[in-house]
């Protein structure tokens, strides 16, 4: 392991790779600051550029963009109350009131320090957890992998929010359906190609990610112009941030919530499907419940604890989400699904073998993620006022440029102009689905896991002579399947349970009233 870490460190400190971390963090911060554009878009926009780079440099760049995008999204949450992604929605609860009080600098500093702590602890835990899980997963069989993927997909659907579960399941199914288009991997027969040569290799992952995220998110901001141009007050807030310094008391007050939330965030991040959004909401809720009554009142009004908790949790969760990706080859979130797509494009299959076959790459990604945290703290924080000025680029120029990056990003990989037209069609469908409130991340996850899921299911069925008993014969498979069923059906059964509970309460109240009479 030490050899691997040293090899990874050697790769990560190469000047080119250090530059990639810096560039990634800066570009990610800028894209993340644009309201509506999240880390998935930021990474998707980077993929075409990384094809001309070494796999390690490309992945380091994307890891930097990921962290930068989350940091940028936090900044826009604090400064203009416009979260760049769902993971930073909670940041705005206390960050924006602080900014409105003229303490934007302090809020950004707390967010940066909390993110740094979350990222640092997350990286340390990743250092311990990833090799352990990788060695355990070497004993996994096809049935276990299949069950684990079912668990991942179910969790993504189940954690997608109230009223969204069914739609998220449907989008996962859609993703799996799209993954079946093209040539079948085992028998070589064509499926759903309708005789079109362009469809023989199936849909391009990059095309799908760009069309459903980069293009669709940009066009959604035109379709629903919430904040067409930053108001004069917001512009003033961005240029005059106030002091970035924290007092000793303030540091003391946020230390414990930051540490608690970092651990909580990491473990939530490791769970397939949970991710940074749930981690940040959970951490905020926990800290609010743990706060003294006088501190509790501050939550929502500009509490430093309320800001530090979600920020450390979402960064630690982002690091945690790399555990299933790097050790099992199974992405737990939309963002890590995009990273998996990029890894596969490089010819690298993440999973336990990656830890053995490409230890330098495995460790360089982990070490670079830590470097990314350092860069964000020492470079991006002081640069925020300048990066924020970039947000003042007039929308008539900014939007077409992002659209151009998206379409040329796909075109420059395939040099097939047909891809641009397919992309426009997919984007139209994605816009429609977004307007009907269908979440997109489960679709992407279903698409990326579809091939692997089918391969493992086929293998498990063939080994089991066509019997479904493989689902319960191995304790590990049974555990994964049981958790998947529990996770999937609990939100669906909740309304029924709530209704029966309400009915029981009503009956009880009625009985009480009758006895009184």
């Amino acid at each position, binding site marked *: 392991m030490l050899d691997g870490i040293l090899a990874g460190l050697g790769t990560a400190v190469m000047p080119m790779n250090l530059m990639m971390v810096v560039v990634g963090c800066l570009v990610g911060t800028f894209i993340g600051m644009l309201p509506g554009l999240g880390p998935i878009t930021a990474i998707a926009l980077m993929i075409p550029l990384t094809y001309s780079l070494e796999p390690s440099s490309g992945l380091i760049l994307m890891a930097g963009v990921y962290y930068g995008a989350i940091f940028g999204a936090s900044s826009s949450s604090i400064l203009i109350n416009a979260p760049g992604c769902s993971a930073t929605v909670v940041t705005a609860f206390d960050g924006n009131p602080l900014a409105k009080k003229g303490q934007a600098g302090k809020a950004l500093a707390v967010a940066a320090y909390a993110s740094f702590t979350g990222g640092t602890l997350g990286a340390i835990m990743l250092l311990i957890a990833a090799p352990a899980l990788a060695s355990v997963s070497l004993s996994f069989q096809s049935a276990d992998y299949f069950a684990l993927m079912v668990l991942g997909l179910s969790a993504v659907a189940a954690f997608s929010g109230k009223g969204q579960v069914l*739609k998220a399941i449907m989008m996962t199914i859609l993703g799996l359906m799209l993954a079946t288009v093209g040539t079948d991997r085992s028998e070589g027969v064509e499926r759903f190609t309708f005789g079109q040569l362009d469809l023989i290799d199936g849909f391009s992952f990059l095309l799908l990610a760009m069309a459903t995220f980069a293009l669709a998110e940009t066009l959604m901001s035109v379709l629903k112009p919430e904040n067409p141009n930053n108001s004069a007050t917001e512009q003033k807030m961005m240029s005059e941030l106030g002091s970035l310094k924290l007092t000793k008391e303030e540091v003391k007050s946020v230390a414990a919530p930051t540490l608690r939330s970092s651990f909580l965030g990491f473990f939530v991040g490791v769970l397939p499907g949970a991710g940074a959004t749930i981690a940040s909401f959970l951490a905020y809720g926990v800290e609010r419940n743990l706060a003294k009554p006088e501190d509790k009142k501050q939550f929502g009004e500009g509490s430093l604890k309320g800001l530090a908790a979600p920020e450390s949790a979402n960064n630690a969760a982002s690091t945690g989400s790399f555990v299933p990706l790097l050790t099992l080859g199974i992405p737990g979130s939309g963002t890590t699904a995009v990273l998996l797509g990029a890894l596969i494009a490089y010819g690298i299959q993440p999973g336990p073998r990656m830890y053995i076959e490409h230890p330098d790459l495995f460790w360089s990604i982990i070490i670079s993620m830590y470097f990314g945290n350092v860069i964000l703290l020492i470079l991006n924080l002081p640069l925020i006022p300048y990066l924020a000025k970039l947000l003042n680029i007039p929308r008539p120029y900014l939007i077409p440029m992002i659209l*151009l990056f998206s379409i040329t990003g796909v075109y420059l990989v395939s040099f097939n102009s047909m891809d641009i037209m397919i992309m426009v069609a997919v984007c139209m469908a994605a816009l429609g689905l977004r307007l009907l409130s269908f979440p997109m991340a489960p679709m992407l996850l279903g698409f990326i896991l579809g091939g692997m899921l*089918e391969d493992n299911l086929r293998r498990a069925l063939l080994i089991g002579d066509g019997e479904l008993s493989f689902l319960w014969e191995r304790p590990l498979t049974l555990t994964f399947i049981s958790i998947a069923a529990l996770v999937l059906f609990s939100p669906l059964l909740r309304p029924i349970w709530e209704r029966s509970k309400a009915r029981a309460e009503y009956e009880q109240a009625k009985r009480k009233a009758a006895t009184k009479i």
Partner: protein
Amino acid sequence: MQISNQRIGGLIFLLFSLFYGYFSYDIALFPGAEYEPFTPRTLPQFLALSGVICSVILVITGGADFRASIKHLVWQPVAKLLAAMFAYGLLVNWLGFVLATIIFLVVSFRIMGETKHKKAAAIAVIFTLVFWALLTQILDIYLEPGQLWHWFNG
């Protein structure tokens, strides 16, 4: 039963699943494959069935309370931008990357409400040339000059 966004979504997905399920029977099978436990049709047919079940549930349970207002959506520039991107796809091989990109940017700036044509054209040209230089000189990506270029240069 009121028509709501959820029900519309459910119906569209139901049609899509039926269409997908119908065409799953067109997937060719090798002789004797019907006795195999897993064929190229197995997963698509399971997915089609799951899709139908989920969309029927959404159609039945989807209430009217989730209706998002589509009145305030700004459709026109979005439709025009989509058309501009489609046209870019059609023209890029003919005009070449540089010319097609400049035209796309000028048109898109205009769609987004820029009225100063000279400024828009200048920005489009400078941005495209910088982008082109980045791709060809730094990232070493070859860009086809386009059919038009070949015509003029024999």
